[in-house]
């Protein structure tokens, strides 16, 4: 462990910022994904390496180039969130279910000193799905064909919708913020939450993200020809694009001392975080992954860990030709020769790209892998790209009982990058 002041966090001189004194732990997890509405179903699907990307019916996609996505089964929603049905979006419902689950696992009642509980969430489209339906009807009404739809359908349109829905549902009184940083939103939200807990802004942070499939992103990524007709195959030689997915994930973060004092058993240490920007191009990553490498190095530095300490990587791994190459370049830049031995997986191969909640869902997946001592596989579909010197975990999980530290990366559209480092603390039965 590096005892000198952290590199890359810009701490002036040798002063330790007193705001860094609190160790942040994860005490609860929750997820709603195309693999199911529970954490158990998520882990079961991840372990099995079974992709949830396939035919979907959330909206009409004839006329698009692709016809698959990873969809949450709405019929399986366990208990409807409060709120008038028309005012609460699918993304809101995912968020509420995930957050409820995380908070229950953490053994917390958020109403307890609610002003000291905050929310740090990510979303890229909020209630866009419902807004599209509204807009379609409105446009038809302008031509006189239909009556204008009720404006209340738009209530939860903006990206702050999911986090606000959770805050209202759980009675939260502390800071509530939603960040929109495209694919890096969820990870940046967790990073913000870690900072907030460290500096004492809150005692409990619920961090995560939520996004639902919608026509805008489906059409948009297809317009960029970034979507594969087949389920995505990250880091493979014949990879041809991403697969879209939807869902939400939530983590409960608190200071270690507080968690111990109330008898909670932490699942993982939220050891390090960092965010950077490529400032290179609106849709393509920096080809050598400079911004991503900087984020990874800074997160490691923040965690006071050397690259050698990382036992596996949950990569951003979208399956687009450019992302995977850039991300590999970033990993090689940081891990050097070790890269070829470092287990790498991508949750997107199984649940698709959840956009604003991707980073959060992948953080949950990373922690589950640590707890279970296994790196979940990707479906064994296609040869690894010989130009990318990575150790891909395919077909079956990799047993890594001694895994202690893991890295999760997110490389966002528009160039925002985020990296998170988690350290195992708990046992599997705490997660399940």
């Amino acid at each position, binding site marked *: 462990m590096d005892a000198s002041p952290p590199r890359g966090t810009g701490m002036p001189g040798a002063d330790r910022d007193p705001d860094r004194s609190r160790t942040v732990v994860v005490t609860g997890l929750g997820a709603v994904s195309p693999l199911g509405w529970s954490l158990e179903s998520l882990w079961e699907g991840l372990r099995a390496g079974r992709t949830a990307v396939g035919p979907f019916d959330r909206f009409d996609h004839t006329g698009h180039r692709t016809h698959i996505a990873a969809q949450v089964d709405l019929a399986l929603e366990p208990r409807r969130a409060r709120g008038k049905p028309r005012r609460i979006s699918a993304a809101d419902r995912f968020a509420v279910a995930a957050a409820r689950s995380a908070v229950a696992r953490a053994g917390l009642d958020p109403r307890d000193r609610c002003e000291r509980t905050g929310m740090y969430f990510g979303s890229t489209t909020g209630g866009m799905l419902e807004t599209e339906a509204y807009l379609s009807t409105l446009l038809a009404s302008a031509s006189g064909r239909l009556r204008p739809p009720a404006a209340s359908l738009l209530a939860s349109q903006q990206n702050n919708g999911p986090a606000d829905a959770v805050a209202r549902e759980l009675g939260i009184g502390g800071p509530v913020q939603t960040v929109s940083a495209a694919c890096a939103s969820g990870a940046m939200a967790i990073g913000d939450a870690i900072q907030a807990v460290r500096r004492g802004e809150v005692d409990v942070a619920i961090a995560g993200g939520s996004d639902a499939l919608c*026509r805008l992103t489906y059409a948009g990524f297809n317009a960029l020809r970034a979507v594969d007709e087949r389920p995505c195959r990250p880091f493979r030689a014949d990879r041809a694009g991403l697969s879209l997915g939807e869902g939400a994930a939530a983590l409960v973060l608190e200071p270690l001392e507080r968690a111990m004092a109330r008898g909670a058993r932490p699942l993982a240490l939220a050891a390090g975080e960092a965010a950077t*920007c490529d400032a290179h191009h*609106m849709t393509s990553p920096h080809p050598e992954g400079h911004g991503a490498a900087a984020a990874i190095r800074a997160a490691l530095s923040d965690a006071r860990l050397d690259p050698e300490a990382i036992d596996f990587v949950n990569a951003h791994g979208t399956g687009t030709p450019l992302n995977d190459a850039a991300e590999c370049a970033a990993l090689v830049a940081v891990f050097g020769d070790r890269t070829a031995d470092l287990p790498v997986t991508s949750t997107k191969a199984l649940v698709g790209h959840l956009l604003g909640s991707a980073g959060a869902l992948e953080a949950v997946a990373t922690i589950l892998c640590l707890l279970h001592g296994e790196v979940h596989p990707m479906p064994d579909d296609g040869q690894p790209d010989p130009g990318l010197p990575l150790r891909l975990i395919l077909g079956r999980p990799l047993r890594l009982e001694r895994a202690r530290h893991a890295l999760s990366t997110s490389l966002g559209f528009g160039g925002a990058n985020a990296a998170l480092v988690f350290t195992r603390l708990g046992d599997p039965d705490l997660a399940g």
Partner: protein
Amino acid sequence: MRAEAVVTGLGTIGPFGQGREALARALAAGKPAVAEVDRRAGVHRETGARLAGLVRDRDLSRWIAPAAGRRMCFPSKLAVAAARMALAEAGLDAADTGASRLGVYLSTTFGAGLFTELLLKQVFLEGAETAQPFYFSECVANAPAAQLAIAVGARGPNMMLTQRESGPILAVARAAQAVREGRVDRALAGAVEEVTPLLHALLDRFGALALPSSGRAEMPRPFDRRRDGFLAGEGATVLVLEREDAARARGARALARIGWSGAGFDSTAGVSDWGDGHAPLAAALRAGLDEVPGGVAGIGAVVSGASGTRRGDLLEARVLRASWSGDPLPPLLVPKAVTGEYGGGILAPALLALEGASFGPTPGFAEIDPEVDVAPHSGAAQPAPERVLLTGLASGGGAAWLVLERAS
């Protein structure tokens, strides 16, 4: 000893024009610059709102070369232009800050309204294959922040917050934290919004906007008895933030020091409305102000995020009165009565207030509402405040506050 963050540059564009002088003139005159919204698409209500605070002069070529801006949506252009304006005032070339040490912290409510609308229209009316890549790459809410990063080479953290009316304050607070904690050396922080005809029509259908009524022009009436909604406004404000000691060392003028900031949430709020939870919000605000030198008595003026909504203004008044515990409130400046809601928020007017800019009588206010029981600024001359409190209560429940103080 804690590092302090100061503002060393301000860039602002809105219905009032471009730059701080144009804003100062509008605030002094106490008149909103309004324009008729284009209702030809037929999605507006017949009897609905017709006016908005629109950026009339959309020529930003002084700040963005046409080649550089050719793929930018209007919010991206606004953000880049405002940022360059702020950097110029700060006496900084973008290259002066190591790229990895410059962060971007912006906020928006609706993102790229026009491009989103156009893309969806293509999908709905012409077919998925007509969807234009140009539109989509700008449709993500963080497009302005990403474009700004490319324009000035900012490789530090890049964050776009979406928290409605609290967003601008949260963005500045986050940027200040990053500067103080040494995560970045400098930050560009602010807010951006565009108001399209469709967005205006939707806000109106939602009942959010001030309405015309017989014999009376539609007008936002903050805290007034007859208030019935806000004026939608577009624009952008960007501030340059850096450490106070670094600013002094390079001889830069600090426009303000970032003081206490706080945030909370009123879970009694409806999805798109303000709630009744003023007591916990006031407790949070009061606890924060008690940490400020002089406490509430040290606040020379409140720069309020009120905008003329029935429940938003009521909540704001209750929170302030409870925080001041019955003591008289300082002057209540309401810039959104002039600039409209959204746009660059109240950030630029707050800096001008600290500098002693004169604010005219609050437009639209004529009669106290007994339930609200506060009167906004009358236009009477005031000494320049030492310290101002910015407030941002968001529909849906978010709340944020920020103290700015003079950094002589």
